[in-house]
């Protein structure tokens, strides 16, 4: 599964037991936003999520890769405890600090038909890097 504009998009990549998620964007922050969409898409179609509710997130980590995992795990925890689904994201990055906003709604079993819950973002295939064309990639495997 993949989606978005050619230069700003998300995709899934194969892993034996779990699932790889990858966000690609014009900037590192956009790659983090797209990675969050890829995370949502593990469980449901992000386009089906209405942006009724807003939630702010703050994360800080020693490096970009740990920051990506922290960001994704903050979303996983929020989705699990509040039974939320997020379909739109805005990320601000300053060094290894992040302020982000996610928009979404409570999970509607019938409309969203969630398939599998993400247990956590892992450090497997974890990478935040810039491509030769200037695009940024943020990716890892998530445990499902």
């Amino acid at each position: 599964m993949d989606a978005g504009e050619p230069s700003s998009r998300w995709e899934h990549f194969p892993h034996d037991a779990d699932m790889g998620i990858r966000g690609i964007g014009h900037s590192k922050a956009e790659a983090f936003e797209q990675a969050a969409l890829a995370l949502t898409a593990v469980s449901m179609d992000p386009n089906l999520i209405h942006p009724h509710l807003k939630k702010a997130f703050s994360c800080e980590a020693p490096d970009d890769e740990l920051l990506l995992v922290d960001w994704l795990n903050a979303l996983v925890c929020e989705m699990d405890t509040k039974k939320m689904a997020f379909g739109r994201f805005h990320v601000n990055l300053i060094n290894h600090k992040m302020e982000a906003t996610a928009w979404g709604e409570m999970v509607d079993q019938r409309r969203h038909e969630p398939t599998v819950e993400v247990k956590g973002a892992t450090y497997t295939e974890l990478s935040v890097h810039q491509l030769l064309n200037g695009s940024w990639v943020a990716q890892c495997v998530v445990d499902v």
Partner: protein
Amino acid sequence: MNLSLLTPISEHEWHIPPTGQMRVPGIVFASEALVREMDHKVYEQITNVATLPGIVQASYAMPDAHWGYGFPIGGVAAFDADRGGVVSAGGVGFDISCGVRALYTGLTRKDIEPVKKKLADTLFWNVPAGVGSTGRLHLDTKGMDTMLSGGAQWAIKQGYGRPEDLNRIEEHGCMQGAIADCVSDRAKKRQQDEMGTLGSGNHYLEIQEVVETYHDPLPKQLAIKKGDILISIHCGSRGLGHQIGTEFLKKMVVAAGKYDIWLPDRELACAPINSSLGQEYLGAMRAAINCALANRQIVTHLVRQAFADILPHADLPLMYDVSHNTCKVEEHRIGNQSRRLFVHRKGATRAFGPGHSDIPPDLQTIGQPVLIGGTMGTFSYLLVGTEESMELAYGSACHGAGRSMSRHQATRQWKGGRVIDDLAKEGILIRSPSKRGVAEEAPGAYKDVTAVVDAAEEAQLARKVAKMRPLICIKG
């Protein structure tokens, strides 16, 4: 996996000699065909585990080994605290103490068939399954801490089950050394409404028919015969275990430098057993084991309620409960010495042989039951541990079939509705909140569980007792 990288010891045992930073060899138990099917990443992960401080004897892979994160799924490794050994959050995984339990029913297929649809619907109604599912039990702070210390013993005190169930649960239903204070508030919050739920992914509740038995008199000794109906429950520690795994992975990655631990892969995050972080993780991880044991105990109670409504004459005693994502302290003979080791099993089942003191007295002569989950369309297996397994891989065996293709590939190949219809034609009723989830878990997305189990038997890790085929599957 490239066979030229391995040295064959027998038809079902392959060694990877230590090179580079490896402290011990890698050992793979599998047939040649299964080894060939394994991704090269499994090789990398086996050899990476072999580099960790304090590892004893070898880094092992079971016949169902596949690419995990840090450790391979199907990986076993033991560490000696007195020789700088580590405990690894990545070596246990996110779904701490995920496991399988089996219940007897005293029923046969002719009892089930007339009420099969009603039974499937009632089980699906009674046992919460799927993404974000919540149970009817809400735990407050005090209740949560008591549950984390008490495990299945706590659940039974709350009325979920029978005291005799405890005789057939590892650790007698309560993992000692659990420290609720080592579990974060966030982890507890994730769990407060999730007790008694299956979860999603490969978790399931199945009604199964015994279609074949092996090695008389083992089936009789385990009170199993062809045609019997069993119940199988596969689930774990839900959000609490996931959060503990998440938090300690990061803590251990960040602290690796402080402990002078070189990590070939961040996912191998670990800390010395004799460090404050190592002890903190062990306290939290053991609490998560209790959470999983309590969860499966509550699900058992919900299953018994469903049966009481539809087949009230059925009695559902517990056959056995095994966990397959754990780190446990065990005594093992290494050479002429008995040593206390921290045995990590990630997607591997404890399979203690006959006579082991941790096996219930009435199973002492036959060994520990080993429950291997298959797919919703194929088979599951019941095996028992062997004396040989104690020498081969710390009394360990495989845990399931292992995926042969990714979830992504599976959804391209199958539609959930079609899978459900096709299985119904074979007499298998599927109930699931998600059709895409069913497609991801389609039987064809998994390896041949029979080949895995046969390899485990040929390698002498465990002995087959019975093969079961699903009749009803509640899929998370």
